[in-house]
């Protein structure tokens, strides 16, 4: 029995279908991310859970109670808004205390809980400051403290780190996850940053154009993208279109131009959906799974067209018979390959993934 369920939830604004038939089950204590590009409906979905947008159809059930029709100030959820929405005329402590005041918690108990929450986000020394006297990262932590002090059944985070700079963002991601683990609150986070979603979520819900395209653990979503969109949105992908030459439960062979590529691990789909010989399919291989050999060893020759230094990695663009391929190599401190150099590329068959069937062979 899941803790929070969205059943066939949809939202339309006139002719615009912002969210269409979203089904989601979140377990208690889980950290789930709604991931997707702008306009995919993730924020609208979050707002429906929060109650600020009324669903056009569908049900939202929290811990057995149907909250679809409930007003936002009755749902009792903890929300961290994108702009943090701190009350500028109240101190940090007053901000955090506000939810407790609305619940008529006694002064003694509020004081203790506020202190606890501020200690959890490491802002105890700032209790008497005003929001405008704080930095962006500190304001975000106040917003978090304010949302968790009320011990909500669900914590909703709306792009909480989008206003922070890159370095701070990384730190906050881990801190956020650590805090969430400690207090064990079921959490739903909306973000467009896929690396953020991958690093701290238990599961990611990838959305595109109002629909859910894949729900999986970060690892599985990355390694086994179920369609083109997910394969390109999460991480970088080298996609190849080809025709199925042979297939069984163990492996599939795809003809891409003059080459035959083997898709290891087979394709685990039900009979009806599995690709057959002659179908047009898309397969993908991640850049870090491609090996470059300066001596030219490998299954294909290629020429380096450009390279980018990313600190811990080198990103190469190489041109080969199959087209242009992105390759990511660990920076082991050795001399990198230069542009124009001829190399050999290779990969493990198990690393090639079936992504989608584009057309049935008639």
């Amino acid at each position: 029995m899941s803790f929070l369920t969205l059943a066939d939830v949809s939202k339309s604004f006139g002719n615009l279908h912002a969210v269409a038939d979203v089904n989601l089950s979140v377990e208690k204590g889980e950290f789930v991310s709604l991931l997707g590009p702008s306009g995919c409906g993730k924020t609208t979905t979050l707002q429906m859970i929060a109650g600020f947008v009324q669903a056009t159809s569908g049900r939202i059930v929290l811990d057995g109670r149907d909250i679809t029709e409930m007003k936002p100030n009755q749902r009792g959820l903890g929300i961290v808004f994108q702009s943090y929405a701190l009350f500028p005329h109240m101190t940090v402590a007053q901000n955090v205390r506000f939810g407790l005041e609305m619940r008529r918690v006694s002064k003694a108990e509020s004081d203790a809980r506020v202190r606890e929450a501020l200690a959890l986000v490491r802002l105890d020394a700032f209790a008497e400051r005003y929001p405008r006297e704080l930095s962006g990262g500190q304001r975000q932590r106040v917003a978090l403290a304010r949302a968790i002090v009320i011990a909500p059944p669900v914590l909703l985070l709306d792009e909480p780190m989008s206003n922070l700079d890159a370095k701070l963002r990384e730190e906050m991601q881990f801190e956020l996850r650590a805090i969430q683990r400690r207090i064990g609150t079921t959490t739903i986070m909306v973000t467009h940053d896929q690396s953020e979603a991958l690093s701290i979520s238990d599961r990611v819900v990838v959305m595109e154009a109002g629909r859910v395209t894949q729900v999986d653990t970060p690892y599985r979503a990355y390694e086994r993208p179920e369609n083109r969109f997910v394969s390109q949105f999460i991480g970088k992908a080298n996609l190849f279109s080809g025709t199925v030459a042979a297939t069984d439960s163990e492996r599939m062979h795809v003809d891409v131009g003059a080459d035959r590529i083997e898709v290891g691990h087979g394709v685990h789909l039900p009979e009806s959906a599995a690709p057959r010989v002659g179908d047009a399919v898309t397969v993908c291989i991640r850049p870090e799974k491609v090996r470059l050999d300066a001596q030219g060893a490998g299954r294909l020759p290629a020429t380096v067209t450009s390279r980018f230094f990313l600190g811990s990695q080198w990103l190469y663009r190489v041109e080969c018979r199959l087209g242009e391929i992105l390759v990511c190599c660990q920076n082991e401190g050795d001399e990198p390959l230069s542009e124009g150099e001829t190399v050999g590329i290779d990969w493990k068959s198990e690393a090639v993934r079936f992504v989608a069937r584009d057309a049935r062979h008639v």
Partner: protein
Amino acid sequence: MWLLCAPSLILFATLVLVPLAMTLVLTFYRFDPSSGPIAAFQFGNYVNVIGSPYYQTIFLRTFGIAAITTAFCVAIGAPEAYVLSKMRDPWRSAFLLVILAPLLVSVVVRAFGWSMLLGTAGIVNQAFGLVGLGPYKLEYTTFAIVIALVHVMLPFMVIPVWTALQKLDPQTEQAALSLMASPATTLRRIVLPQIMPGVLSGSLMVFGLSASAFAIPGLLGGRRLKVAATAVYDEFLGSLNWPLGATIALLLLAANLVIMLTYYRVLERRYGRGMG
């Protein structure tokens, strides 16, 4: 650089600074009914004004009217600005225009409109007559002055409150609701404190303008309900006692400044720190 500024500097020095200084000097002159102001340095005029019950009443009435007007403007203007901010365009800009455009119509026209509405044979009384009430004597009363002043001053309250509302993050209202505050509590504890600076600057403006208002008390107060501005007019263009008139005007200015400064200090202490 000086070339660009010099003309305006000269113009303003001549037509603002010098005349004001001269007026200050004038307050110390004596007045002779037959020959006009006589140069002197005496405080007789000040004593006359501050000591006389006639002028005390006038000042009390002036500031009383200004205070009531300010209170009404806050009570009507602030909520109205809030209601407007929650509207969608095109209604929002249209109604904002309707409320602010009267600023550009001459005050005489607006005062006259009210005198027509409130006259004994005026529209309001005619409406009362339809339900069998009245007629009430509405014109030439303090009530009439206040109503017309509120009408004229309303835009000056709406503008700063509107500006403050624009700066308000709407997500703070959502945050309060999500923390289980009722809509009324949200208004009281989240919206109101954030628009206080707007209310404050609006109040100061309305009070200052109401205290020195001339046309409205003149047309709607009649000959018997004098305020400071119309008293000054009487002295200058009526009895020709310029020194006395100048004294009343300067005292009005001074009292106005004192009241507004105190009000500002008090509210700043209460709301200042949170607002930057």
